[in-house]
């Protein structure tokens, strides 16, 4: 919890909107707009937000699966954005990803053994026997059996497939794992199993997670710190408990208020979040949230709020706290 493993500064991704015969650029979608955060060794950083707020784009940019428009990503004192393709491949050994859809993220024509062996082949680790042995060990680690190795992905259930996806991410013994909504495609009963598996693996291998999700409950369960994103910007970042007990930003408050409470007698005081998510191709001026904010002031409409530490380790971008 001391030194940062990954430092992100001013990360931006603008997708161009093109039209016409010559692909003239007529605008841009600011999928991720000026994002800065650090991830410390051994922690789990949760990133939450509505669909389309740029969480997945952020995750993919960290691995440079999507090229950032601007900004810096420093992983273990190495500037990821400036690496050559060869150097990048080496870094990817230490940074792995778990994908959302366990039905799409495994090649349907490869056996489980081949899927899990491939990261080792690509990085030239071990002889054939050693690799096969590691595959079988890893299957046991993620709660499958070694005799599953010869099967194909379509012979497994969603939860089992996600375990295979997790095993693949672990094969190269990475330091950082970016989990992009790893449980949102699974049944609720399976979600808990997979989350517990992720926690066990974290303890066993000393992993650091960036956990991207839209489910606040899931994120609370697994994260040490939580970042809340809105329209490509981070609006609040703090320890998990602080975010849930003492949310500062009106958007975070509204999100938490929207979580259903399993009590039929409970009456909600007020609807905090109304209106639609503004288009990211034409985001509101000033604070992006001002169009839906209950506490909107005049200043919010014109000036973008600064990213400030309002309490120790509790960052907020909101004019209410300046």
């Amino acid at each position, binding site marked *: 919890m001391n030194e940062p493993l990954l430092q992100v500064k001013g990360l931006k991704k603008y997708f161009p909107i093109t039209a016409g015969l010559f692909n003239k650029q007529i605008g841009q979608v600011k999928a991720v707009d000026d994002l800065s955060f650090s991830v410390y060794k051994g922690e789990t950083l949760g990133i939450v937000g509505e669909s389309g707020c740029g969480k997945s784009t952020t995750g993919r940019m960290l691995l440079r699966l999507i090229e950032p428009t601007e900004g810096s990503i420093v992983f273990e004192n190495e500037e990821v954005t400036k690496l050559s393709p060869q150097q990048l*491949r*080496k870094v*990817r*050994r230490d940074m792995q990803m778990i994908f959302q859809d366990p039905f799409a*993220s495994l090649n349907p024509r490869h*056996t489980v053994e081949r899927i899990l062996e491939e*990261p080792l082949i690509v990085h030239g680790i071990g002889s054939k026997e050693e690799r096969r042995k590691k595959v079988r060990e890893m299957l046991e680690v993620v709660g499958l059996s070694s*005799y599953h190795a010869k*099967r194909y992905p379509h012979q497994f259930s969603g939860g089992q497939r996600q375990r295979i996806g997790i095993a693949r991410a672990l094969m*190269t013994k990475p330091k950082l794992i970016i989990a992009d909504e790893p449980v949102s495609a699974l049944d609720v009963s399976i979600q808990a199993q997979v989350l517990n598996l992720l926690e066990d693996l974290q303890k066993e291998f000393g992993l650091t997670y960036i956990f991207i999700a839209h489910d606040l409950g899931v994120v609370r369960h697994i994260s040490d710190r939580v970042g809340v994103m809105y329209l490509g910007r981070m609006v609040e970042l703090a320890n998990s408990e602080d975010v849930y007990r003492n949310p500062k930003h009106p958007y975070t408050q509204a999100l938490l208020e929207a979580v259903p409470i399993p009590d039929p007698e409970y009456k909600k005081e007020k609807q905090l979040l109304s209106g639609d998510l503004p288009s990211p191709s034409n985001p509101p001026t000033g604070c992006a949230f001002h169009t839906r904010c209950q506490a909107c002031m005049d200043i919010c409409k014109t000036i973008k709020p600064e990213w400030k530490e309002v309490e120790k380790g509790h960052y907020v971008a909101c004019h209410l706290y300046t």
Partner: protein
Amino acid sequence: MAELARNEANIVQEEQATSLWKEGWIRFRKNKMALVGSGIVLFFILLAVFAPFIAPYDMNDQQLSLRLQAPSKDHIFGTDDFGRDIFSRVVYGARISLWVGFFSVLGSVVIGSLLGIIAGYYGRWIDAVISRIFDIMLAFPSILLAIGIVAVLGPSLKNALIAIAVINIPNFGRLIRSRVLSIKQEEYITAAKAIGMSDARILFHHILPNSMAPIIVQGTLAIATAIIEAAALGFLGLGAQPPNPEWGKMLADSKAYLTQAPWTMIFPGLAIMLTVLGFNLMGDGLRDALDPRMKS
């Protein structure tokens, strides 16, 4: 109780791992028309391989005293205008037609796939250039293009094969390009990139194997078309040259005797029809078996 659990574990272990190919084969086996088609194809392949043992006469053996004989015990398909045994010629003709069909399609599959993969995977201007070339080629009626190519190269069986291969390249190129474009978006390709895989490995280990099913289906159907095209070029005198017993050429030679000796035309014609039918049935069966979603 413990024993029961162990038995259950054994049952699970014995369960066979089935790849998508194996499942496709199981579906194919259940399709009667596909089996009939494969039977016909197999029949002609055997005919071609064992032609010297099956044919009762030499294909070029002329017995001018026995010109244009009707089918009889000695010549079950009759004889042609040079007194050659039509049955023997049809049997040897299977060699030529299958050879041209198979190798011309192999050529177009290899070149078409390569171009299609490059266009689909790298996109941008490379895609634009390759796709426009395909468009230009597809703008010509294919047989006209084939005639043009043979006219430049000179009429022979080999050049007919090359021409047929060339005109089929854009069909395969486009097919593979569209497959690559859709597979490229799949999450397992992103996963492969995230692992640190090189482009070449992604192309040949992930994208190509997942594009194989439509190539095989289209390839089988294309063999049928290629056989017809080879026969058409032969008929026009641009393919196999005499005295090669090419089916299309035999049809052309029979023109003059159509009314007196219809068997000179019927049997080579039947041979063409049957082989093409066989490949088409087999191709349709493969399509249904390998890629149920492709069914239109």
